[in-house]
């Protein structure tokens, strides 16, 4: 640990020396960011193989130590901060901004606390309270190794997006801050909610700030884009709501009590045989369509380029980095968790779909765009195709690679949007043809752009490669994809070539060649503020590229559980075309079912039940 402290100081000193002409604050901030990243590596570094079995033994006790209030704080602090902002005067810009930064800092530090607990099997930081007892709706939040990283990604990228926005937006700052804080709170809530009602509330809640972000601070066509974004997502969510209600009703028919809890609904197998039209298939597709729209998966993706092009830089960063992950996360958690048989049945076909129309079609479309932001938006379609492919394959490394790729995409594409924002702020255009030879006048900017490009196309040593490789290797070995696994792995690997084609094409057109456009001759290189926004992202690109195990270790248990639950449910529950059935006891592990609702006892007065971890067991 102390050696890492020394390393951190050294790295900080080097980072402070990097800017050629930087102010003291700029140098100090860079040094702090770098030292912090190095310290984080040291902190997360595995202590050695010897302690690993010991950590596994603590599987049960480990959960005990987790303070259950933490997740409430993570959701509550940003939302509370947004409410508190209402009472601050809008004229005092620095106060408003400072307050927002403070809230972001608190949330980020809180999310780092999550990393201190060993991510063993089961749920952590679980907190349960009754909300609407008459309908069995509870406030149930909990964390596992998968949502952990998505929460950290949220608390990591939202501040960067807000920071970048403050540099380019100068109207309605207070509303902007409120929107960002609400957005963050809602996104964290979505990743943490284990009650489907609560999940739905957060899912819809996060739409509103993003709708405002695009609609108020966006480009010329912002209203249309905001509406398109909203209606697309809404259409999916309404379907999902219907499916949730059907599922809850079926659970009530089976078990005699109302609940919206994920852990309880997981155990309901709706009537239906895979491959036929049945309640099970309809509910699966209702959920899945909602998530596919969000991901987005072809052919539901056309809202994304419009939304990205019109959204302000900060909005694009959050949209790409976090919001798209709602779809992939939702598919992993809910579509695969609630309807494993359907998900398994559809996997091979869907994998073919995302390869053909996500990875390859998306890449081809990206190649032909003339607007840089549109291009990056289409590249998101291709990248998320890899994520979905990993999920469809449902092997350990496939799912891990998919989760890692969610993070990677957030980092790399977020950085790309920031970079596009930099040039947009200077020239107010994003047409590739307007540029050329920028490397001459903006060398630092060009360098950073090339680095992020390399991460985006998955050059080894950057984060993108690890995720892609794990997904490809996972696809190759997948049993879920039947005999098509190898063929699909090859096709997905082909997408790697196309990624190089479109990204390098745009790099060449923008940065290389003669500096022909006179408007570009006086452009200023990237400003200290912009480098500060990018520095953490670029450091993380290399951090994940070289030390992915720091993340993979912590998601291991959760991925194993998810995969096993998925596979076992498919294996052990024989499909019944007519009647709903319950998953037999023993399929789901004890630690997974911790906190599942029980049939209410005769004592209705007891309103609030904060689950102590000692009260284990579930409805079986």
């Amino acid at each position: 640990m102390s050696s890492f402290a020394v390393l951190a100081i050294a790295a900080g000193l080097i980072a402070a020396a990097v800017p050629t002409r930087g102010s003291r604050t700029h140098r100090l901030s860079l040094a702090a960011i770098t030292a912090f990243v190095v310290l984080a590596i040291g902190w997360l570094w595995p202590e050695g193989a010897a302690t690993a079995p010991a950590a596994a033994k603590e599987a049960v006790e480990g959960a005990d130590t987790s303070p259950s209030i933490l997740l409430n704080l993570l959701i509550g602090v940003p939302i509370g901060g947004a409410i508190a902002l209402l009472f601050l005067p809008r004229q005092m810009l620095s106060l408003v901004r400072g307050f927002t930064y403070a809230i972001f800092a608190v949330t980020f530090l809180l999310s780092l606390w999550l990393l201190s607990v060993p991510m063993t099997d089961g749920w952590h930081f679980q907190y349960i309270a009754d909300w609407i007892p008459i309908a069995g709706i509870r406030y149930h939040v909990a964390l596992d190794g998968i949502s952990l990283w998505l929460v950290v990604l949220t608390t990591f990228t939202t501040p960067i997006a807000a920071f970048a926005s403050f540099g380019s937006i100068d109207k309605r700052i207070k509303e902007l801050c409120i929107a960002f804080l609400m957005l963050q709170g809602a996104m964290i809530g979505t990743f943490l909610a284990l009650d489907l009602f609560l999940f739905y509330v957060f899912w819809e809640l996060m739409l509103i700030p993003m709708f405002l972000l695009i609609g108020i601070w966006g480009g010329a066509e912002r209203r249309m884009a905001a509406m398109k974004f909203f209606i697309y997502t809404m259409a999916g969510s309404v379907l999902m709501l219907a499916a949730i209600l059907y599922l809850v009703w079926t659970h009530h028919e089976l078990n005699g009590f109302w609940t919206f809890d994920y852990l309880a609904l997981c155990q309901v197998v709706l009537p239906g045989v895979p491959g036929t039209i049945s309640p099970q298939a309809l509910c699966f597709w209702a959920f899945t369509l909602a998530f596919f729209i969000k991901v987005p998966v072809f052919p539901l993706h056309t809202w994304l380029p419009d939304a990205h092009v019109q959204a302000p830089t900060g909005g694009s960063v959050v949209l790409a980095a976090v919001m798209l992950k709602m779809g992939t996360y939702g598919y992993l958690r809910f579509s695969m968790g609630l309807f494993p048989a359907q998900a398994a049945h559809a996997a091979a076909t869907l994998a073919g779909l995302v390869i053909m129309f996500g990875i390859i079609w998306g890449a081809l479309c990206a190649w032909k765009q003339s607007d840089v932001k549109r291009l990056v938006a289409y590249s998101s379609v291709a990248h998320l195709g890899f994520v979905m492919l990993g999920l469809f394959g449902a092997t350990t490394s496939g799912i891990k690679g998919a989760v890692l790729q969610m993070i990677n995409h957030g980092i790399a594409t977020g950085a790309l949007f920031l970079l596009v924002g930099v040039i947009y702020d200077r020239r107010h255009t994003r047409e590739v043809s307007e540029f050329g030879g920028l490397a001459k006048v903006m060398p630092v900017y060009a360098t950073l752009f090339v680095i992020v490009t390399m991460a985006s196309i998955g050059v080894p040593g950057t984060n993108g490669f690890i995720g892609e490789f794990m997904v490809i290797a996972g696809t190759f070995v997948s049993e879920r994809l039947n005999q098509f696994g190898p063929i699909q792995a090859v096709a997905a690997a082909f997408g790697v070539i196309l990624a190089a084609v479109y990204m390098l094409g745009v790099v060449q057109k923008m940065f290389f060649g003669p500096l022909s456009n006179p408007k570009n001759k006086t452009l200023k290189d990237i400003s200290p503020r912009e480098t500060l926004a990018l520095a953490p992202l670029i450091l993380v690109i290399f951090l994940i590229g070289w030390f992915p195990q720091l993340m993979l270790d912590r998601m291991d248990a959760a991925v194993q559980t998810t995969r096993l639950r998925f596979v076992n449910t498919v294996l052990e529950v024989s499909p019944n075309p007519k009647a709903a059935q319950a998953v037999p006891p023993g399929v789901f592990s004890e630690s997974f079912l911790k906190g599942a609702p029980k049939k209410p006892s005769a004592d209705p007065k007891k309103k609030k039940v904060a689950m102590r971890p000692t009260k284990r067991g579930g409805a079986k």
Partner: protein
Amino acid sequence: MLSQLTSQFPANDFTLLAAVLLLPLIGAFVCGIFGKRLGKEGVRLMALSAVFGSFIASVVTFIMVAAAPHTATKAARLSWKAWHWFDVTGRGRSVVPIDVSFSVDALSATMMLIVTGVGFLIHLYSTGYMAKDEGFYRFFAYLNLFIFSMLVLILGDNLLVLFVGWEGVGLCSYLLIGFWFDDEKKAAAGKKAFIANRIGDFGLLVAMAMLVYYAGTLSWDGLEAAQSAMAEQRTVWSASYLREFPDWLVWLRDLVTPEQPVRMMVATMVALALFIGCIGKSAQIPLFVWLPDAMAGPTPVSALIHAATMVTAGIYLVCRTSFIFALSPLAMAVVAGTGALTALFAASIAFAQTDLKKVLAYSTVSQLGFMFIGVGVGAFAAGFFHVITHAFFKGCLFLCAGSVIHAMHARVHDETASQDMRNMGGLRKYMPITHMTFLVSCLAIAGFPLTSGFWSKDELLFKAFTNTIVPLNPNIITPPLWYGQMIYAIGIVAAVGTAFYMFRAYFMTFHGDFRGWSIVAGFKPPAHDDHHDDDHADHDEPLEGPVPHESPRSMTVPLIILAFFAAIGGFVYAEPLHQVWPLEMFVSLEHFWSPVFATASKFVTTRPGSEAMMWPLLGVGAGVSLFGIGAAYWVYIVQKGEPAKAFVARAGGLHRLVLDKWRIDELYDATILGLIDAMGDIAAQCDRWIVDGIIAKLTSGVVKVTGHALRLLHTGRVQVYAASMVVGTAVIGWYVFTPHAEATIDARRVRPQGQVRFEAAAGHGYRYRWHIDGETVPDIFSGRRNFSMQLERCEQKTAVLTIKNAFDREAVTTYTQCRESKPGCCKPTDTPAPKKEALLGRVDGGVR
């Protein structure tokens, strides 16, 4: 001394590799970030000391590898695990750990010496060559980064770490080709190189995925041990894959699936996938097109990356994974065949080129082909030895070319003109050192007896003639016996070509009269130095200029060192000589490397009588080179190039075709690239108009139209509302006025007990009358809605429901039911209801 080192750096924790690797990385970092502030001297010091430090560490490593204990079959391997990188899932959910670890054995130790040694010389050369460039620091940052990546490639202990270096060198190559990025063409050449390499990387990715699955490991030791898994036969394509096809697509399935499942050996698939990577990186047919374009980069880059080191990575990879390749005679034949074709094809292009660097570029492609011949016929050591001698002579040739271009730049600033051999000539007088070193290297590449190229090229062609690959079992596809001889014949033709076009270049550059400008003693460059004027070497007024100058010492010293090795480097291998004079103290490189190839060489045999063939074939090799050189001498010195001009005049079309590189680039543009481009256009337009059109625009349009239609009704005129109210009331009133006789039937008990229950639908003011058809009709209507009917076996009855509503209007419905206790006993009825319907209690009848 050595024992101290050994205890300091044990074989399983050989941290000295960290020094080898990290020094160039630090150099790259410092030059790249702080280079501008350090100034040229600082950058020079940093970059040179980083690579030189790495070279020293490599020498120490080499000595330690040579001294480490090894047997004839087990190579000494010093390894260092840096940290655990990540895990992937293998077959049957096994965990395949992947470490960031490095190792060095005889093969990589040699390669490491070449990379750092030649790398250092080229760094040194570059400090002179690039002295006036404003991107000096950037250049050395990239160059150091390249050395680092190349070392990662060589030292990686598993395929994935190798892949990091593999893509890393590709990236550096991209950055360095496009180093002068304000020229669009150079930037485009960089992109082309990167994408061609990416196509190769795709193969490597697939190979890694296969290895994870089949072998369950990616580390060299693990793969070597996994030979049984490699030898498995696997079904790769069979009709059963598509059994879930819908009926209307069956014809397609029959079209694409063979009768018998296609089976392939794992080793073949893996080796071919790996070889795709090699094709991309080592510029073989069909992906060689990027390498000639890559000459757009600064000349030292061409020497280091595109001649001496990076492009030979493909051969290194085949040697590294020789135990996989050797298992599959088919893959080996593909490797050798591709190599032979490339050797010949590239040589043919080199005949007509007038750009000095282009000649060298195609010669590189051709020589790489020779190397693949070597490794493809199982002569791994010979093939790899050609990598090393090639690094010397081709590195030297490129640096000489750079030296010449440097001199030409005194008056000719245009890129193309300064590299055009038609503007050179007679330079041997003015540049004696460059001339001598160029000549030596030319002799070496032409295979002049006793030079390094002679020994390596002769050895691998000899092996091509004599070697055969023994299949593991007779079911494996093997090439025919004459295949080796055919490769040998192609190789000989290509070797003649090599000698000819290299000496053509030599004579055109260094002999004859200087054609660049008219030399004026004591020439002073014009003060305004009008570039525009100088851009065209062949403009009307003859250009005047100074005496062409020899390059500075920092450039000539590397030339001399490289030429020295190009001349005598062959003796460290020189297999025939070692057989004649076996020297105890002087071990041949082949012997040094043999443990590395021990597993692979089990599959390689020589045909009988090959021992006797050695000297005759050696003679053929020497004769071939002398013939090529002599022919060039005759054409370009004795006849002053007349036969060449006559040939051009006679076969102008062919000459133009060759000059245009057989128009391969154009072919690719028209076919594959055009196809992908069209696909991109189609995708983008479809996405915009069809996908978005249907999903977003059409749905929104439908909603909009519906909204418009409905809006028409909401005009705000009270009269319209009143009228619609009247119409609506009338419709509802008519419905209420009419009785509706409907009932639900409960026929669940009709079969066991013969009972059918009816329940008439309720309505306002309804009264009901039930009776059975044919029985007496009761007079009274009552409020009783329920009715039941008893049936005997096979009996059929009809219930009649009459309803009277508040307006005394009547409606009648009949329900026919049958108790089918035996199948078919309900058939004869006047109402031909299907029996099933009757059973299920469907309504049979209507409002009368």
